[in-house]
């Protein structure tokens, strides 16, 4: 066991998978430049020393190199592509949505597309084009799997599961959770480090986890919002409200049984996502809860999200944009009737 940050755990996971399987390679911008940064958030730092040929530094051509990852994947390779900021996925939507997500289906099930696409998300003081949480956009795209690790343990475990999966897996990582050190550290970061086992392990895609047990209200959130939900649960505990915090870890497939079981116990649900409210991940979870758990719910399902605005630059406005533990706790208080 060794304590690692998410950046370190992902790096170790990539190193192990590349050593284990010659078909695995990384492709992206500034990921393997000697003297460089190991990508925008140090995840691939140093890997080029051991895997020069399989660390492919690309031009600034997201649609191009993600399309190349698809081509390599259908020829039997297992590419791990990454964009420096999730916002740049928007430059590659044709390849991701029209090609990658549909290629197997269009082939009548004859092709496999084993491909991992990593994307850092979260509002982090860079303004509207470097802070979007685009998870919701991909919920409506069948053919993709989506994972959102909130801890170093899950980051490594889900990365390994993704690399070994025969389907395209989109992995969202939060900039404030990497725990990148030194020059590349993010201000406002949270500690998401974990003890990482010596032995090989994978976290099954589609399986969520209860982060804190409670009987009064269920709070669901991923990435940074999972940590904010835990902080909210702590606040609530002080007031005698026992919140259960669930981290789905995967958005597609979604561990509905876990959430349903919890809501059947607590009868109240608060769903948290960073990013605009309308058409959000929270909306999808709330809709399914309303459809299937109506008889158990004693309060409306509450969505705690960002307002419907782009990510503003100024810190006071951006802190207002990003859901806080206080806002989550408030929604929980309201649902238990405490206010």
């Amino acid at each position, binding site marked *: 066991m060794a304590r690692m940050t998410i950046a370190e755990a992902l790096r170790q996971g990539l190193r192990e998978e590349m050593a284990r399987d010659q078909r695995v*390679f990384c492709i992206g911008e500034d990921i393997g430049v000697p003297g460089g940064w190991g990508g925008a958030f140090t995840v691939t730092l140093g890997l080029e020393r051991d895997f020069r*040929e*399989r660390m*492919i530094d*690309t*031009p600034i*051509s997201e*649609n*191009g*190199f*993600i*399309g*190349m*990852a*698809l*081509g*390599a*994947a*259908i*020829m*039997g*390779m297992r*590419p791990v592509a990454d964009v420096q900021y999730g916002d740049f996925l928007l430059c590659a939507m*044709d*390849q991701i949505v*029209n*090609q990658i997500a549909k*290629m*197997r*289906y*269009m*082939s*009548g*099930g*004859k*092709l*496999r*597309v084993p491909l991992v696409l990593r994307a850092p998300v979260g509002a982090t003081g860079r303004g509207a084009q470097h802070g979007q949480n685009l998870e919701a956009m991909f919920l409506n795209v*069948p*053919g993709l*799997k989506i994972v959102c690790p909130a801890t170093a343990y899950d980051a490594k475990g889900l990365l390994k599961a993704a690399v070994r999966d*025969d*389907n395209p897996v989109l992995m969202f990582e939060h900039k404030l959770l990497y725990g990148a050190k030194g020059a590349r550290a993010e201000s406002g970061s949270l500690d998401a480090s974990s003890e990482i086992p010596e032995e090989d392990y994978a976290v099954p895609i589609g399986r969520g986890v209860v982060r804190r047990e409670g009987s009064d209200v269920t709070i669901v959130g991923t990435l940074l919002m999972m940590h904010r939900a835990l902080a909210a649960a702590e606040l609530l505990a002080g007031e005698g409200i026992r919140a259960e915090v669930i981290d789905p870890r995967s958005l597609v497939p979604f561990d509905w049984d876990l959430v349903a079981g919890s809501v059947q116990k607590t009868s109240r649900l608060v769903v948290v996502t960073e990013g605009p409210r309308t058409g959000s991940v929270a909306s999808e979870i709330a809709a399914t809860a309303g459809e299937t758990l109506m008889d158990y719910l004693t309060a409306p399902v509450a969505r705690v999200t960002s307002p419907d605005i782009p990510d503003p630059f100024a810190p006071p406005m951006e802190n207002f944009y990003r859901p806080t533990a206080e806002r989550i706790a408030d929604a929980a208080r309201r649902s238990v009737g405490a206010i």
Partner: protein
Amino acid sequence: MSYEREFLLSLFRTMVTIRRFEERVKYLFLEGVMPGTIHQYHGQEAIAAGVCAALDRNDVITSTHRPHGHAIAKGLGVAPLMHELFGKPTGCCRGKGGSMHVGDLSKGMVPAIAIVGSGVPVATGMALAFRLRKEPRVAVCFMGDGAVNEGAFHEGVNMGAIWSLPVVYVIENNRYSASTPIADTVKLEHLADRAAGYGIPGVTVDGNNVLAVYECTRAALDKARAGEGPTLVEALTYRITGHSRRDPCNYQPEDERKKALEHEPIGHFTAWLLEQGAADQAALEAIGAEVDAEIECAVKSAMGAPDPRPEDALGDVYA
């Protein structure tokens, strides 16, 4: 004449198969018995035939919204194609792809990509896989003239170039992108001139001359296999049918169209074969008859094949 007779006749057979296939399909559409929409290959047969004849068995191709010719030339067989066009589970994509997505990777053809230009990065990525595994294979990317204006073309060709990947980019310049003359959307004499911007060779070839296409492709494949990187091949041709089902083509000038018909590739090659004494009229007609029989049989089996069950739609999303 340095070509084997069998080889020349196989080129002829491929071109005729494509032409008759497309004519039959068009007729099936007019009869209203075939679902969906189509983009047909009439007039461009020499390109698919010439390029694919130059490929090794392990080489692969990507295709476009106009894929029937590529599929036939790559050897998918008319029956699996016809079944796919009819949306049958017995089709090459089990009825889930349809005309614009026909393909069969076991035959070296990726399901056709109907988003203009989007096959360029995909073909380049297949070439990257060959490079990483040190396999002597080449990926060929078919595209229309209109594709050269898509960002995907630019990004994909550039990466093929900087890494000298084993890929050949074949532009089928049929003068039109849908109803838009390519001359209105590029400020160039030849589309092959775009190659210079990527530091790779560009070649313009008569796309209606199957042997010229074959030779030019062979040279490009040899370079690619030798690690010398991509070639941008521009094959000049003409679309002697509508852009898609039921297009009257009023935007094509009469005389231009007439001239194109005079230079269409099959008549051109037929005359050459006869003149070279590579075959006599009877032999060529015999091939035509065999092809027609094969297509008729494909049509019958396709129309007779059972439809998919509606709920079959639910499968094949994930592996």
